């Protein structure tokens, strides 16, 4: 079919080329002068075809000017020009073929050609072939987008013709894809269309799915005619069709008479009040449905209150009927959509996994500092969330001073560490040191600090959210296909989480501080007797945990709003992460973060409309999980667990 179209186009252009050789486009225009002047939709087509098929360079200009109502006819000789208004009621005419101005004329000497909307649409369709082969790639892409947005049967031929000469491989691929989609909808015969449909059955892009879904648009019909393209049978009372709607369909089809609803019957009763009574029933007694039914039945002898709509519609034939007439096409589309759905499902699972990983990284980042202070030192730091907030605000302040986003982030990360490290050390020295081995009191004291810090932040920065802008190279997302994509910021956070995992393991296993920390954790007296200063170790460990919270704050601030409540949004999840994972083990924290992250994403996927519910169910799940593993996923056993 493509070959035929091509041959036709070629033939047309050849013939007109021979004809127009001498005098250019003006000749073609003059040939069809009568039709152009008349501007009627019924007769204009040969003219447009002739211009478009002339193969002359000016053809596109003519069509554009004509469509934009910028084509004028000189009264004296009937020649066509395009014109621009140079002064009031004065126009400068340009020759189409040369583009040269031919003189200035008063409006009275000219006739403007005003094609109506139908004609303009036809011109537009003719223009598509020029745009599709426009030397400027952007305009070609624009044309493709325009076609995609508002596809018509007439686009099929020019699109098909333009593929041959396409040099840009990306645009060529797009053209081919679009051609398939157009063929699916407007293909000449069933076989072509089915072949096109089958060729996209592995394509999960949104466009393909939209095209197939359009094919499958349907409505529910009562007792459809034999020739209709019927789909499933619909049972009234199911989710697809309520009893009332089914009944209305039957009423519309003339198979049933309208049954008045209770409200209509009430309105009827209101209209028939007669001396304080309706149908012989006093008004005051009409406060039950039975009494009203009695009154209505008295006025309408044929009406039976016991008739149930459900009984009437129950065994009737309701089918979904496709707008597309061709059954082979709808069947193929259904098959293709089914196989696409499987693939989409697989890809969605992959996307969900990526989302889960990214959420888990965030929880891990937020919780790792807590895991150090809570897990290693046994100190509950309720102000941990506020350290995260301090980190985020540090990032914000740095951005106010250093306008370059990349540099400011690089400065903000270590600075946030320093700020929260200092805050953590100060807090350890002033408060926590005096409360070791009194975990509940530590919890309360750090909570006091938490509310104070939160309010101070509110007083300094106000209640509205402050922006922490990520550098441009972190904008955007890594797009695998229409289903799977992940933003660069989340990838960066994942990498950051990995770095911190490595850093933590390095510090704990390879450095003096790690060795001393482990020693102090296991037996403070023994450690002290071996010359380790537990005070110093505790201080540094606490500072380290707080410092990491600060860095996590910068990372979180990049995608969340920086407010004084930033920290408290994450604190409960962070605690859950540590508790679920198992205290005193970094792998436990990792496992906890992974579990909570995937769980939350999983629940959100099952109930996408409601993230609040997802959090509720997640917390309930965690409460039940703790039943079975009270010490977390990775638990210390035996005496070391210290019952």
């Amino acid at each position: 079919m493509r070959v035929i179209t091509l041959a036709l186009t070629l033939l047309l252009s050849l013939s007109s080329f021979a004809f127009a050789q001498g005098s250019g486009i003006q000749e073609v225009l003059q040939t069809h002068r009568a039709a152009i002047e008349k501007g009627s939709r019924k007769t204009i087509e040969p003219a447009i075809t002739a211009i478009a098929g002339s193969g002359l360079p000016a053809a596109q200009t003519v069509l554009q000017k004509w469509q934009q109502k910028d084509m004028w006819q000189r009264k004296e000789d009937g020649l066509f020009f395009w014109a621009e208004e140079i002064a009031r009621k004065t126009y400068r005419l340009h020759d189409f073929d040369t583009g040269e101005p031919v003189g200035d004329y008063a409006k009275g000497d000219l006739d403007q050609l005003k094609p109506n909307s139908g004609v303009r649409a036809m011109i537009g369709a003719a223009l598509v072939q020029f745009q599709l082969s426009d030397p400027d790639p952007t305009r070609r892409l624009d044309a493709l987008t325009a076609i995609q947005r508002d596809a018509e049967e007439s686009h099929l031929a020019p699109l098909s013709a333009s593929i041959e000469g396409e040099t840009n491989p990306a645009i060529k691929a797009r053209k081919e894809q679009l051609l398939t989609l157009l063929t699916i909808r407007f293909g000449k015969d069933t076989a072509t269309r089915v072949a096109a449909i089958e060729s996209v059955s592995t394509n999960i892009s949104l466009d393909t799915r939209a095209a197939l879904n359009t094919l499958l648009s349907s409505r529910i019909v009562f007792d459809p005619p034999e020739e209709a393209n019927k789909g499933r049978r619909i049972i009234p009372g199911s989710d697809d069709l309520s009893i009332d709607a089914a009944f209305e369909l039957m009423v519309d089809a003339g198979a049933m008479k309208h049954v008045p609803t209770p409200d209509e019957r009430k309105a009827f009763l209101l209209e028939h009040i007669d001396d304080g009574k309706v149908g012989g029933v006093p008004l005051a007694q009409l406060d039950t449905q039975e009494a009203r039914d009695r009154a209505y039945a008295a006025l309408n002898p044929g009406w039976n209150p016991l008739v149930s709509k459900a009984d009437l519609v129950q065994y009737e034939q309701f089918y979904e009927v496709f707008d597309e007439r061709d059954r082979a096409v709808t069947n193929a589309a259904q098959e293709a959509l089914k196989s696409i759905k499987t693939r989409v499902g697989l890809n969605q699972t992959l996307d969900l996994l990526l989302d889960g990983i990214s959420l888990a990284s965030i929880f891990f980042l937020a919780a790792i500092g807590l895991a150090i202070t809570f897990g290693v030192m046994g100190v509950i730091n309720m102000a941990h969330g506020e350290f995260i907030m301090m980190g985020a605000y540090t990032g914000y302040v740095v951005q106010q001073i250093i306008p370059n986003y990349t540099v400011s982030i690089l400065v903000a990360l270590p600075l946030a560490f320093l700020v929260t490290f200092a805050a953590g050390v100060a807090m350890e020295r002033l408060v926590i040191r005096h409360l070791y081995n009194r975990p509940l009191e530590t919890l309360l004291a750090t909570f006091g600090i938490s509310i104070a810090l939160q309010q101070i932040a509110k007083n300094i920065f106000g209640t509205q959210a402050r922006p922490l802008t990520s550098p441009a190279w972190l904008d955007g997302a890594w797009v695998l296909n229409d289903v799977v994509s992940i933003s660069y910021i989340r990838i960066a956070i994942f990498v950051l989480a990995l770095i911190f995992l490595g850093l933590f393991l390095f510090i704990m296993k390879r450095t003096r501080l790690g060795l001393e920390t482990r020693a102090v954790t296991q037996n403070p007296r023994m450690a002290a007797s071996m010359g380790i200063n537990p005070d110093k170790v505790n201080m540094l460990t606490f500072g380290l945990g707080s410092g990491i919270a600060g860095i996590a704050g910068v990372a979180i601030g990049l995608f969340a709003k920086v407010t004084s409540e930033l920290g408290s949004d994450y604190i409960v999840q962070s605690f859950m992460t540590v508790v679920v994972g198992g205290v005193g083990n970094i792998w436990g924290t990792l496992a906890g973060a992974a579990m909570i992250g995937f769980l939350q994403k999983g629940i959100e996927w099952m109930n996408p409309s409601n993230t609040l519910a997802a959090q509720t169910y997640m917390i309930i799940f965690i409460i039940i999980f703790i039943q079975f593993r009270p010490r977390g996923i990775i638990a210390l056993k035996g005496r070391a667990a210290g019952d």
Partner: protein
Amino acid sequence: MSTLLEVSGVSVSFDGFKAINNLSFQIGKAEMRAIIGPNGAGKTTFMDIVTGKTRPDEGRVIWGDKSVSLLKMSEAQIARAGVGRKFQRPTVFEDQTVFDNLLLALKKDRGPLPVLFYRRSAEDVDKVHALAEEIGLTDQLDRKSGELSHGQKQWLEIGMLLAQEPQLLLVDEPAAGMTPEEREHTTAILVEAAKTRAVVVVEHDMEFVRRLNCKVTVLHEGSVLAEGSLDHVTSNKDVIDVYLGR
């Protein structure tokens, strides 16, 4: 003499370390027994298993005339069944008076509601006084137990054990940190208690064990190394090896 507690083939391990290895042990109804052994021999873990704090990986723990298994019972149920335990550290309720501590331990219905509606009777008060007499704390009844000396706390704890009227008393290092006079008093209390019930004493101090004058079980690496009179076990070559090191 019928068996009160029979432990057979019990093993338990923590992270691969076998704390108790195929241990079997029996004790009769009115018997005093001392358990000795080097550090890490499994003495405390053995007590943990009997009292339900630690669940063994395998083995059986059978209790009393009805031969019930202790393995399925909670700590509180085991305690109510008649096993009393004294910890290494004296653990008494320091914020409460000696009287309240003893009253709390008296054998009574332990359910929340009976306890809520409990009113102390003259009989219970007499019992508390008798117990205080026995452990020598009559003068201290109204003091908070946190104010007692270390030895007094140990006695108070033994008194609380006796108040429970258990059939089996598990006592972990009762003489640790006591003066010689206090030790003598402790010995007397335990010997007296063993006349009517089974008493198992875990102790490091050989002199104290000798004074108890009872059968001795030596634990080593989680199982019984030797059993018999103190003289018998101390002349056992294995025991000497374990204690002196090879």
